């Protein structure tokens, strides 16, 4: 199977250097719809869905391969190879920041810089480290996902009608956005919230931009500080935007921070 079909790869823009946008835990590549077009004039933009999300091929979901972030990073490398990417920019939201970091280590030369939006190398607090969640809370989340399957499945696949206020969002888009196979979502949540990539931070030598929101319960400010210290070639920018998805809630601020970095 072509990796481009498997990961629903969409490219746009000029033939300039490539800029890859990766979505995090939750929705799909549409997360970047207010950000990616701003780079089409000078870059070749590459968007994709992780296997299990959005328009990806659900049949390609292999629980063993995707039992840690490394499997997702392998997909990024495969996409990069397929498109012949070299010296590209990788932009990862949420957990995809770490997926991109792993991919950059697996395929040196593929990416010349990393942009991380709301990243966290470790969500669970640990001896002196603040991740924002206790182990018990993450267990609670996973338990909740396990026994409230139907509630979440109903919640995550709401009946979506035509959207008169936003005619630009076609029905196809609204129907697929944030809709995840409940079993895969459960597994992706487990992989995401149990991941620990703190030891990988120091291995990165390429320039890295860390974009942190002012108030983000998923990735608190302390996490951004920690990452900047661990990554010698990194730069931390605290956005005025709040929440976990500044790419949707404050796209202009994200775009301008990205522009001044690249």
């Amino acid at each position, binding site marked *: 199977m072509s990796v481009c079909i498997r990961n629903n790869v969409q490219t746009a823009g000029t033939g300039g250097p490539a800029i890859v946008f990766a979505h995090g835990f939750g929705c799909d590549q549409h997360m970047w719809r207010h950000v990616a077009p701003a780079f089409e004039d000078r870059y070749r933009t590459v968007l994709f869905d992780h296997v299990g999300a959005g328009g990806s091929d659900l049949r390609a979901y292999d629980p063993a391969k995707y039992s840690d972030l490394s499997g997702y990073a392998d997909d990024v490398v495969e996409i990069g190879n397929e498109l012949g990417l070299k010296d590209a920019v990788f932009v990862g939201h949420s957990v995809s920041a770490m997926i991109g970091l792993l991919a950059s280590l697996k395929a040196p030369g593929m990416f010349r810089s990393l942009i991380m939006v709301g990243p966290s190398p470790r969500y669970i607090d640990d001896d002196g480290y603040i991740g924002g969640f206790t182990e018990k809370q993450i267990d*609670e989340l996973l338990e909740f996902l396990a026994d409230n399957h139907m509630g979440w499945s*109903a*919640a995550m696949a709401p009946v*979506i009608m035509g959207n008169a206020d936003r005619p630009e*969002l076609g029905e196809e888009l609204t129907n697929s*956005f*944030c809709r995840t196979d409940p079993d895969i979502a459960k597994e992706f949540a487990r992989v995401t919230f149990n991941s620990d990539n703190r030891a990988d931070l120091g291995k990165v030598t390429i320039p890295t931009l860390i974009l942190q929101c002012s108030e983000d*319960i998923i990735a608190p400010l302390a996490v951004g500080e920690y990452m900047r210290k661990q990554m010698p070639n990194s730069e931390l920018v605290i956005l005025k935007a709040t929440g976990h998805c500044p790419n949707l809630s404050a796209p202009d601020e994200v775009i301008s921070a990205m522009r001044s970095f690249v």
Partner: protein
Amino acid sequence: MSDSGHIEEDLQDLYENAPCGYLSLSADGRIVKANQTFCRWTGYAPDELIGKRLHDFLNIAGRIFYETHFAPLLRMQGFFNEVALDLVKKNGETFPVLVNAAERTDRAGRPQFIRLTVFNASDRRRYERELLRARDELKALTTMLEKRVAEVVAQQLRSDTALSSQRQDAELREQFIAVLGHDLRNPLASIAAGLRLLERSKLDEQAEAIIVLMQKTVVRMASLIDNVLDFARGRLGGGITLTLSTQPLEPVLWQVVGELQSTHPESKIDMDLALTKPVTADPVRIGQLFSNLLGNALTYGVEGKPVTVTARTEDQFELSICNEGNPIAPAAMDRLFYPFARGEVRPSQQGLGLGLYIASEIAKAHGGTIDVTSTPDLTCFTLRMPLQP
């Protein structure tokens, strides 16, 4: 209330005490207004809510999902419907709700504020849990049923295989008996007939001697075939069949002695028959039994020493065949009557090892036994059976 019966709706009251909770959030997600119903349900006073974020009142899973799924969904679509969340009340209890949200934007598409309606979903959540439990039970039941069906099918397959192998065994047995009965006996009969013809023609001494030898071999072979045939019937399911009569047994016993004497002319057979009472038996089978026992005695006996045959009818019918010679090894004793069991024999003496087995089967069919005593002086095989079965 007006005279005409119209109710003048109090919009303020409608907002505060509507049958659902109302929340208004600023563009950055902070609560700016909450109605009385929401306060009543959650146990918070309005000023405890203002300025907080919605996720401050959600359980941990709800917080994460709100930030990763529903907030983006709201931003993308401008609304979301029927999102299941658990509110945490002031007293720590969980309050299951369904939430609808709509975003208000300015002309440029920038969000101005967000309106949420919150519906009590306690019963619905219970119902969903029951459905879930029912689904899990059904799944478990289905799994169990599938397992049970698979077991039954496997069992059926196994018994089908066993049945068909039994059927095959039965067919094989019949073929085997047919081969013995027909394919072996018939050529042997033509050899015997040929030998009789040759006997009558003029032959030199050497040829005559050869024919005598060959005739003995034919008799021996015929008896081997009889034994094998009986073994096949008896062992494989047909059983030894008897044709009972009370006709005297002496003639058949003498006939056997005659046959075996002719093949063992150098041996002496001492006969002591005292059959004073009638015996109900199959004379042909008794003859076969006697032939097998006497044949053994002649084979294993010491050359020059007589084989003694004693027959009595007192309380029961007793037929005893004794010979001198090496005793039967105690170890061989136990297996003496098993098919294909043989003592230490010289190659020339080799039979099929079926003689004693057939003899004991014939004894059993008559309700009798064959007992063996073996000392360095004498080895005796004794048939004991009731006069009437």
